[in-house]
């Protein structure tokens, strides 16, 4: 936590906040002294001039106090919010550039909470620290000092009261802090069960598990409630107990004080101001105890943020690059091997292959055979462990990331659309695309018909995640978005499975018929044999191994795995 603070807080404003806080404490501490003087020399002696004199001084002090505290609030709130804004943007920039490895390590939902909630926590703790928590030690020190100088014999009372207070707070914290942690876990559990109830509603109902869900939720709810009652009972005892200690101290002060006054060793006014100091001292102890509640929570948030910020992007960009703008479309894998970090086994065993512009490379194989892994190497979402991937004749490691992504258009297995319009989603592929180009891309992607029927056509709204489109429609829009991009390699990660046979076939035909696209490299991951039969080269994958490459005919003749796949899809005699 300190590291984040050190990096992101500015020294001068923080100092400013502390100085203003100090000023505020000084003026707050001086008021009781003035009050006691007012009583000792003004009221007791009936000196009205003195009363007015001191009264003005008190006014002056309170104005000073408000100026000081405004200054403090200003610096505290700007610093805290600045810290929040800086951290958020650091994390965001960092995460946006993460490679697949890093995203997988955290999981995107965890990255989201780290960017939002954790930063918010930290930001709140900074405000509290600069305003309240730092005030506690200053006030404690100042009030003790003043109390000692007002009447040192009475300070002995503090030697009794403070240890008792510390014990009370300590005992409460000892029981409450672990309970608070437990409470947090239990509320997470409640939320988890509830969320699952939302996402799985159909399955739950189909299996008639509603009652079980209710019970599961009720269990979590009860656990939370039990802990909640316990922890809040402890906390609610704390305050009355502290008040009792404070009040007992006050009674002690009056008792001993009155004896001191009786033997003329103390003045009446000091009694009043001493009581004020006493309450300040005990109050600052209460504030200090808050540190134990908030700081560990903020420290945990800071740790989670640091984990993200300290994670190095495993993909390193070259400093200098040659450009090969005019090179011909080409894709080759040379002795490529890949293994996920920490994994024991290769996800992809050594293989080589290459395709030229105008050719289609198709990948086929079972679940977990490594198809997606293989194509994820092309846009460098992951780095090869050995060997090299070349795009347009150049090693992808020699490209700037942006330049590489210019050359590769990629359609994910799961279509991701962004909130906006059809137009804004397509513009993602090509910022200055004309309407004509957009329609052309939609046409090839077999999306023209349904977009035509939409209200607003190209300007029809796309909800978050494209929720207002069906799976097949989303996929076709994602394909159109990729096609509009002027790349040399187009990669489709099982993008056609969500389409029916007819649409699938039409789409592939349209790709072939298009003047521009027909000259590019197409990489298609597929599950259906019919999708790949026409490819110029088919890669057959099995459990991380490329077990065969060639055309449909070649593979049919000699590749066993391929034959099995074909057989499984087409009944004997039809193939």
């Amino acid at each position: 936590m300190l590291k984040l603070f050190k990096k992101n807080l500015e020294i001068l404003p923080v100092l400013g906040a502390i100085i203003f806080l100090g000023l505020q404490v000084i003026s707050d501490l001086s008021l009781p002294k003035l009050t006691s003087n007012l009583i000792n020399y003004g009221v007791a002696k009936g000196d009205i001039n003195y009363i007015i004199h001191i009264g003005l001084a008190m006014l002056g002090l309170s104005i000073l106090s408000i100026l000081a505290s405004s200054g403090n609030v200003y610096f505290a709130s700007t610093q805290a919010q600045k810290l929040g804004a800086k951290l958020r943007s650091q994390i965001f920039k960092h995460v946006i550039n993460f490679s697949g490895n890093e995203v997988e390590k955290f999981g995107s939902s965890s990255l989201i909470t780290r960017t939002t909630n954790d930063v918010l926590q930290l930001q709140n703790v900074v405000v509290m620290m600069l305003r309240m928590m730092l005030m506690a030690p200053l006030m404690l020190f100042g009030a003790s000092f003043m109390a000692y100088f007002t009447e040192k014999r009475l300070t002995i009372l503090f030697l009794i009261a403070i240890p008792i207070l510390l014990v009370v707070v300590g005992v409460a914290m000892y029981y409450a802090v672990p309970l608070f942690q437990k409470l947090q876990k239990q509320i997470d559990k409640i939320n988890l069960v509830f969320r699952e109830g939302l996402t799985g509603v159909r399955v739950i109902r189909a299996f008639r598990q509603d009652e079980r869900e209710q019970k599961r939720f009720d269990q979590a709810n009860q656990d939370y409630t039990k802990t909640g009652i316990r922890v809040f009972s402890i906390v609610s005892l704390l305050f009355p107990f502290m008040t009792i200690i404070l009040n007992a101290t006050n009674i002690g002060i009056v008792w001993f004080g009155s004896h001191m006054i009786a033997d003329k060793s103390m003045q009446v006014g000091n009694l009043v101001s001493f009581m004020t100091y006493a309450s300040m001292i005990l109050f600052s102890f209460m504030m200090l105890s808050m540190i134990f509640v908030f700081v560990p929570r903020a420290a945990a948030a800071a740790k989670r943020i640091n984990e993200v910020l300290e994670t190095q992007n495993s993909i390193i960009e070259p400093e200098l690059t040659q450009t090969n703008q005019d090179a011909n479309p080409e894709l080759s894998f040379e002795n490529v091997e890949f293994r996920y970090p920490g994994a024991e086994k290769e996800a992809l065993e050594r293989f080589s292959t290459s395709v030229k512009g105008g050719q289609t490379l198709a990948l086929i194989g079972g679940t977990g055979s490594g198809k997606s892994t293989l194509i994820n190497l092309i846009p460098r979402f992951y780095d090869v462990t050995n060997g090299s991937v070349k795009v347009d004749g150049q090693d992808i490691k020699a490209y700037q990331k942006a330049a590489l992504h210019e050359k590769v258009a990629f359609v994910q297995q799961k279509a991701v659309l962004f909130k906006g319009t059809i137009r804004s989603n397509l513009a993602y592929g090509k910022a200055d695309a004309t309407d004509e180009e957009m329609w052309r891309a939609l046409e090839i992607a077999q999306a023209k018909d349904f977009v035509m029927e939409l209200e607003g056509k190209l300007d029809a709204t796309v909800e978050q995640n494209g929720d207002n489109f069906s799976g097949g429609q989303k996929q076709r829009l994602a394909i159109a978005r990729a096609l509009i991009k002027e790349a040399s390699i187009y990669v489709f990660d099982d993008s056609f499975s969500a389409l029916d046979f007819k649409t699938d076939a039409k789409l592939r035909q349209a790709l072939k018929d298009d003047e521009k696209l027909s000259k590019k490299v197409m990489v298609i991951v597929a599950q259906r044999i019919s999708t790949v039969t026409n490819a110029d080269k088919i890669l057959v994958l099995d459990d991380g191994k490329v077990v065969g490459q060639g055309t449909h005919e070649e593979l049919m003749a000699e590749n066993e795995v391929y034959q099995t796949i074909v057989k499984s899809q087409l009944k004997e005699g039809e193939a």
Partner: protein
Amino acid sequence: MHGKKNFEGAKDFWGTVKRLIKFMGPWKWMFALVFVFAIGSTIFQIVTPKVLGEATTEIYAGIKRGMASKQSMSHYPINFTRITHILLTVGAFYLISAALAIGQQLIMANVSQKIVYRLRKAFKAKMQRLPINYYDTHQNGDIMSRAVNDMDNIAGTLQQSLAQFVTSIVTFIGVLVMMFSISWKLTLIALLMLPLSFVVVGIVAPKSQKYFAAQQKSLGLINNQVEEDFAGQSVIKAFNKEDESIKNFEAENQRYYQSSWKAQFISGLIMPLTMMVKNLGYVAVAIVGGIQVASGKVTLGNVQAFLQYVNQFSQPITQIANIANTIQATVASAERIFEVLDEPEMPQPKNQAEAKSIDSQAKIEFKDVQFGYTDDKLLMDGFNLQVQAGQKVAIVGPTGAGKTTLINLLERFYDLKGGHIYLDGQDTHQMKREDLRSHFSMVLQDTWLFTGSIYDNIKYGRPDASKEEVIKAAKAAHVDTFVRQLPDGYDTVLNEAASNISQGQRQLITIARAFLADPEILILDEATSSVDTRTEVLIQKAMDKLLHNRTSFVVAHRLSTIQDADNIIVMNHGHILETGNHESLMQQQGFYADLYNSQFDN
């Protein structure tokens, strides 16, 4: 559309308050006790400064007596018996006040947790009774925020603000009474400060609220963007949009910074400003009081007590203002929760006995079914279908043809707009949904599994299944092989994001779950689309065994999986285009034949 802003006020404030009070009904005596305790505790607390002030007066009187008597004494003649008496009284008051406060807080901690427990339970139970249509038309995030944030708001307010509200009001009135009992002149001076602090709060508070609203809005937008961009991070990278996305984020982040520090700064000013007003009053009272003590009109102890009251006086005002805001937000939260609780529920069939039966040979019969997801557009209009027991029915057709709809209606996730569906001749509309669904088991496109072990997830299909049965189902669905390779085997806990097993493996688990359920009628909705074709063959073989003598509905895009179906229904636009088996449909040379042949044209 639905409650996207948490900071919005309640639409019907008092109506919601009344409902909330009604909801708390069972605890009304507890609340009464809390209020009595709070009032009692506050009164004892308020009286003490005046009593303690008497001690000061007593001391002061002693000093005066000492100074008045001409003889010099080593001690002032202070009446210690009286002081002892006063201090004992004060001590007793403190203890009573603390005891009442403890009692009040303990009850409140208990009651508030229980109320929220009940509210949460009611909310969750409501989710069970809402039609699927509700889930379709409301975003999960929105429902979640009601179940989480709004609940939290209510819990927090009950726990802290409610009793504080009472305490503040009692303090305010009590302090006022005490001040009047000491000196009406001094009270008037103190009261002069009141309008001043109202002015301060009145000017500053709305300003800070404006910025708070802007801050909330920015925060919402930031969160949205973070969610969307992180989820689609690889797409952003693939399209080289990192800079643009960062730029958008920075812009919103800056807006958030601007409004948030202002909101915090201005609301932070309220406290020092009211402090200053208070100090102003304090000094004024000190001056006037001092003069009055000097002239003997008021006792010193009373002025001292009065000064303490001035300190206490301003506190409840700011507190009440704060709490009023909190309560407003809480009522808005409660309203959002009640809104859900008020949603129309699925109608329950009136009486089992009334269930209308027809004489039908078919296992399942759709008769003149009319259905549409929205009221204005019918997707199915006069749909008829008969399925005999033990038949395998395949449903094919392009996206949006109504294939999934058919399944939705079978399971009765939606109610018909017209017509009937009969199961064994019994009108499904008049059966209990649970009874109806007990005849089905399904594997959906969406591979939902809950956070728990693989074992428990399979067992979900039939909770009373034995371990052997679970393993048997897992083997049949080819789950066993990959599960055994996992370090924790069947105890492997699937996490929420389900990143620890692949999509295809998840699908296999859902298939195992359906295997275990061993239903009369099996529904497979594109269940095999993310399982590779080789695994699918193995599943298919096991499935054939399972399907034997069992009625089944299969929705699949791969025509190879359904060629042996007894009946293939080709749908488009909510209508049946063709029915028949593979051979007869191929001979018809219609839509199906077209679809089938497209597998092979290149």
